[in-house]
């Protein structure tokens, strides 16, 4: 497929491997923060992205939560979108056509309330042109297990990974929740379950209150915290997980600049995802790619891969 072109011949080698998936650079857009890519077409060159990860897709369409769904916090934001999406069938028929033509690997973020739902979504995505990988959001509540999130229990996390791996015909990236005591245990379980890579972190659970109205700022009361505020937690988890597993790790959380991206790579990430920063600067991911080129050039890196895990801790 043409998007596997390993590197841009003009500049330094930014290509990285996420298991069998080769990316021309380590910059992807995080699920739920980049729509279905088309929204950004006027504002940046989508073809330059390492990969596009689309908004989480469920088996059936979801209307999402009532408003307000968003609240700003110090150096961050809360969201409780409620996983609004068009459902896998309309995603394939309405969105994949455009995405497949971008010349960029498209990774489909999926979510479900049961193992069966995850499996069925994979089955429907199999063979769809342009789908280069699946990212499994395991932060969703498991309805069969009393609503405890799949991502908070190693056994449940492993079982959803296995289920997806059994069905999917593309590499599987499992996206870890940070709202756990021991993220390393979950990462190991997911690796044992067959994940080709792990991405982290999803949002921290948070809340905001409006003193004037004495109400929660979100109709859903609680929501997911993202943005620069969470970067230290994300970096720590990324570092811990990268040392514990042997599959590639994808860093996510508060990444706004090339410096942020490089810090995650030093901590062990093979690639990164840009989330909330897309709202602040719709060109953020392209600016990060430019920054990586500049860094690799100045530092005379033969390949950006040489800095992965390069943190000096003596």
């Amino acid at each position: 497929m043409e998007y596997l072109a390993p590197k841009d011949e003009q500049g330094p080698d930014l290509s990285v491997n996420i298991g069998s998936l080769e990316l021309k650079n380590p910059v992807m857009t995080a699920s739920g923060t980049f729509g279905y890519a088309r929204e950004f077409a006027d504002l940046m060159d989508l073809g330059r992205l390492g990969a596009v990860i689309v908004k989480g897709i469920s088996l059936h369409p979801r209307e999402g939560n009532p408003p307000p769904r968003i609240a700003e916090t110090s150096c961050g934001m809360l969201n409780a979108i409620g996983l609004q999406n068009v459902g896998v069938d309309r995603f394939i028929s309405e969105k994949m056509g455009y995405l497949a033509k971008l010349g960029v690997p498209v990774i489909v973020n999926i979510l479900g309330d049961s193992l069966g739902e995850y499996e069925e979504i994979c089955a429907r995505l199999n063979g769809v042109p342009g789908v280069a990988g699946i990212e499994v959001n395991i932060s969703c509540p498991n309805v069969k297990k009393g609503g405890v999130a799949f991502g908070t229990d190693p056994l449940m996390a492993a079982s959803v990974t296995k289920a997806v791996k059994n069905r999917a015909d593309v590499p599987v990236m499992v996206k870890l929740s940070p709202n756990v005591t021991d993220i390393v245990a979950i990462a190991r379980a997911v690796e044992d379950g067959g994940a080709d890579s792990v991405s982290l972190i999803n949002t921290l659970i948070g809340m905001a209150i409006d003193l004037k109205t004495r109400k929660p700022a979100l109709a859903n009361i609680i929501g997911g915290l993202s943005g620069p505020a969470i970067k230290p937690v994300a970096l720590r988890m990324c570092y811990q997980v990268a040392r514990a597993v042997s599959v590639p790790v994808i860093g996510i959380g508060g990444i706004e600049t090339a410096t942020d991206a490089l810090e995650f790579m030093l901590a062990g990430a093979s690639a990164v995802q840009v989330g909330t920063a897309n709202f602040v600067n719709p060109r953020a991911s392209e600016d990060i790619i430019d920054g990586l080129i500049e860094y690799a050039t100045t530092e005379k890196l033969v390949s950006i891969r040489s800095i992965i895990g390069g943190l000096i801790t003596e």
Partner: protein
Amino acid sequence: MSQYQENATVTRVEQFSATNYRITLNCPEIAGCAEPGQFVMVRTTTSKDPLLRRPFSIHQCLGDGSLQLYFKVVGRGTDLLSKVSPGEKISVFGPLGRGYRLNSTKPAIFVGGGMGIAPLLFLVKEYCRLKKECGEDIVLLGGRDKSEVAPLVDDFEVYGPSVVASTDDGSFGQQGFVTELLQNIALPPSCVLYGCGPEPMLKALGAFCRDRNIECQVSVESVMACGMGACLGCSRPAKDGTYTHVCVHGPVFDAEKLAWNI
């Protein structure tokens, strides 16, 4: 519908009252393709706090590539914006959303309350330009007090429509709400109404127009993170029981299509 992110130069800052400001920005790409009722997302700081951009209606597009915002200081973002100086640069991104549908054959009533006045100036200008003669059109402007309305009256009148004002405290125009003005004017036959302002006012406009079978387009607000359809954060209930997204399906809607929560 192209969109641009521009590093706009502030060319003018006007202060109308303790809290109300109008700033003029040079951002030719956005100004060159904006339509009345559309908005822009503005970064009010280069710091990470406050983090998100703020949405503002396009108050006016001038021929020279400038664009104006008319806003009230209500929190930290607008406070920072009120403190910019001419020559400074701020990041502006737009034009965004669906604006007003201009129906240039019908007589129009424009109703703005408070900061809802902001998008109407651009709208009235374009409307009158297309229609050529707009002496029958009526602009109703309501505000808290004189300082919120008076400085803008001339800007509207220059395009031809008649302007009637009201203020909550009676310091300018008639005392009371702008919706009360509406009750008392003679409506031109088969007119269309364009509104922007606080939710209760828009709800009242919708009811008023439904009763009289008048087309009513209103511009509404919502919390926004991205302003361009990527975050799905700006949902708002529509009358059909689904959610609509203010940044892409709006901010201008047929009043009939919306559900009012208040």
